């Protein structure tokens, strides 16, 4: 039964994202890639949450979708790397290696969403600044590894904490997002969706490890 449900979820995810892809490519929509990534991201999120719920019944959580424990440290290293890259190379300024790096693009809208060149905006190579890509990729991968790798002792209680933290992070993140939509104006608002996507992971990790720490502390008082 649950197998079938998961298949349904996968099928829905696939059909939904492909329909969106076709619709948007017909309209030549500018931020198509971001929207597709967003849809895929949320589909995976929903599938993952369903999977966690399904596994609540096992004595030890049999998680196919949680990374092994040692990935936690790798995630931490990636996070540190991402922060170091942002600190050392900064957002502005020239750097021979990182600002002129050959990249492959699926869609390149050009600056200010205007096509000034005759070059096709879909699929091609060009030289570009990869500092942003590098730091964001490392940050997201690091956060995912830290947040979704197994603890040293994983069981139904920690799974409950994890699920609750996911829900909690979702609420907090969207509360902040709505606040930003209503009260923040001007160019800074362009940054908000990106920050919100990253903040979700950060809030989740912070809340999960805080609750875990509290339960550990509470357990160490009792004898």
């Amino acid at each position, binding site marked *: 039964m649950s197998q079938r449900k998961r298949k349904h979820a996968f099928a829905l995810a696939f059909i939904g994202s492909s329909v969106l892809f076709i619709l948007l490519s017909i309209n030549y929509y500018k931020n198509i890639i971001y929207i597709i990534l967003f849809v895929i991201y949320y589909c995976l999120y929903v599938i993952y949450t369903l999977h966690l719920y399904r596994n609540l019944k096992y004595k030890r959580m049999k998680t196919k979708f949680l990374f092994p424990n040692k990935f936690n440290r790798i995630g931490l290293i990636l996070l540190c790397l991402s922060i170091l890259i942002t600190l050392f190379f900064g957002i502005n300024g020239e750097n021979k290696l990182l600002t002129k790096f050959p990249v492959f693009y699926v869609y390149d809208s050009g600056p200010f969403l205007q096509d000034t060149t005759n070059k096709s905006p879909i699929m091609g190579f060009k030289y570009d600044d990869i500092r942003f890509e590098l730091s964001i990729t490392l940050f997201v991968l690091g956060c995912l590894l830290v947040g979704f790798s197994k603890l040293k002792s994983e*069981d139904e209680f920690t799974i409950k904490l994890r699920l609750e933290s996911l829900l909690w992070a979702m609420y907090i993140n969207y509360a902040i997002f709505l606040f930003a939509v209503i009260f923040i104006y001007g160019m800074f608002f362009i940054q908000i969706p990106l920050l919100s996507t990253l903040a979700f992971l950060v809030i989740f990790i912070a809340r999960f490890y805080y609750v875990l720490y509290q339960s550990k502390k509470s357990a160490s008082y009792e004898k």
Partner: protein
Amino acid sequence: MKNNLKVERAIKNITQEELSKQIGVTRQAINAVELNKYVPSTVLSLKLSNFFGKTVNEIFSLEDTD
């Protein structure tokens, strides 16, 4: 839901740490159950009942609010 896990544990004279190792869950889980912060799954409660040699009803009981 109420439980007398703490009493049972005292009768057997076993710490939370040992109990959690025997059952195969984290220590926090046992602690949270004792503090009524966490309702254990059926599997965990059956394991506890097996360990203490009592039925689940003897260890866990419903409250009026449930």
